[in-house]
């Protein structure tokens, strides 16, 4: 009813917008590059929560090649390199469940808070830890 919706309308005229601006003015070819471009600072993003699970970090030197992370990965995002006894992670396949970071015995995997990782270059989304 008009009497009920009017107070809401007035409230919203004077309150802050509920939506956030997109980080870049226009959709750039690579969002990751655009964000690190010093000439056009991005619109600030909303900070993520403490438990946010973003792109994986991998400490290759610590990894003991136990393959446990390969065993639990639901998305088959980790590939085991048999000769080197190390892994690589395809971040574009990862579903960010953090199961591998939980199971890794030497804790060489961790989730970062980086979430703007889309790119046209598939190779850019492979984490080698090197």
């Amino acid at each position, binding site marked *: *009813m008009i009497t009920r919706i009017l107070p809401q309308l007035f409230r919203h005229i004077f309150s802050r917008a509920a939506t956030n601006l997109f980080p870049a003015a226009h959709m750039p070819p690579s969002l990751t590059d655009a964000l690190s471009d010093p000439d056009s600072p991005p619109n600030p993003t909303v900070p993520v929560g*403490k438990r*946010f699970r973003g792109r994986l970090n991998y400490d290759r030197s610590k990894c003991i090649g136990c393959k446990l992370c390969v*065993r*639990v990965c639901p998305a088959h995002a980790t590939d085991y390199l048999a000769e080197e006894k190390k892994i690589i992670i395809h971040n574009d396949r990862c*579903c960010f469940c*953090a199961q591998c970071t939980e199971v890794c015995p030497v804790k060489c995997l961790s989730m970062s808070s980086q979430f703007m990782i889309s790119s046209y270059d598939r190779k850019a989304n492979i984490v080698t830890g090197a």
Partner: protein
Amino acid sequence: MSTTYTVPIGPVHVGLKEPVTAWLDLEGERIVGAKIRPGAIHRGIEFMARERNPIQVIYLSERICGICSFSHVIAFIRAIEDLAGLKVPPRAQYIRTLVLELERVHSHLLWAGVACYTIGFDSAFHLGMQMRERVMDVLELLTGNRVNYGVATFGGVRWDVTPELAKAMREMIRYYRREFTPFREIVMADPVAQARMRNVGVLTRDEAVRYSAVGPTARASGLRVDLRKSSPYEAYADIPVEPVVPQDYFGAAHGDVLDRFAVRVLEVYQSLDIMDAALDGLPEGPYVAEPNVNKVLASLKKAEGTGWGIIEAPRGDDTHIVSLKGGDDNVFWWKVRAPTYANAVSWPLMFRGNELADAPLIINSIDPCISCMERMMVTDGGGDPLIVTKTELLERCRRKTFDLGSGIRTKGAGTGGLEGGTTK
């Protein structure tokens, strides 16, 4: 002399969120018959599960549905816990209940907003979507993600509810108690919204029983069915839940779209009460029985048998049945019955006598999740086609259920819903 035209709505249509086709027989603007043809979004998730171990399938089951993902996870996990006899610590049960209710709130708010959008009431749609952000924020704080939380695991949950989180949840509950009533009144007292939703898409009480409607769709037709009451799981054993039926609030149940709106909106208040009670009673102690995933996997490798998990998802009963074979890493077989499957058979009845313009609203009124529903696909494999009558099919079904039941405990089987309802 009237001519009947057959018009398809879908599979891709502005009024629908997911692909399904409704072939409507029209006389002028009036719908005189309807046929529903699903089959556009089958993804073969069960097949993928057969090359994954139970831990991996948790995250696969989460992807059956984006909105009620946690319900599917809990149903799947409960099925595995049932077959392997895993115990869940009380604190984990309460945390699961909290997340289930948070999910119900965001699912119902989304539906209420989209229903307003379907009838062209965009101001209320934006209001609903803005309000929904609050529960999404709490979910993100608690689990790290806004959808597909990844918070549950066998024998408990993966992340605890800390005191700050409990505080954030209390604040959210207070926010909704304050802000939700104006939204409800704006929509329900609006004469246009009433005209669009009252006596549209009616499913009577008897029809709801006969066609096995579940969840809010059944409750809106006046059936007192709610698995949280009739076969409590997790913390619902401690927290009493009364099914929300329109006759308790408005005197009579019409079984129309407005009643379905009212039931979902009132369930949001109920969820807030449940969350308050769960936070009050949150027991101390561990939140997972066995934190070592390797040990869990090793014990599940030995497990053998079939387990059931049936819970009340935001849309109705969600059933998962899982079978594991001893010595085998992977899931042997897995069957999912999502609530939309039960509710979709009522669609043709709801369409009767309504106008074409109401069709998207009626389709949306059961809160359909087509991705949840499409669990199998019959392809032409070159074999003989087989046509069975309804009686034969029922007979085959019973025989299969009987065969299933003879090997396992039949606990929990078959109590999925209507029993509590027919005896008012």
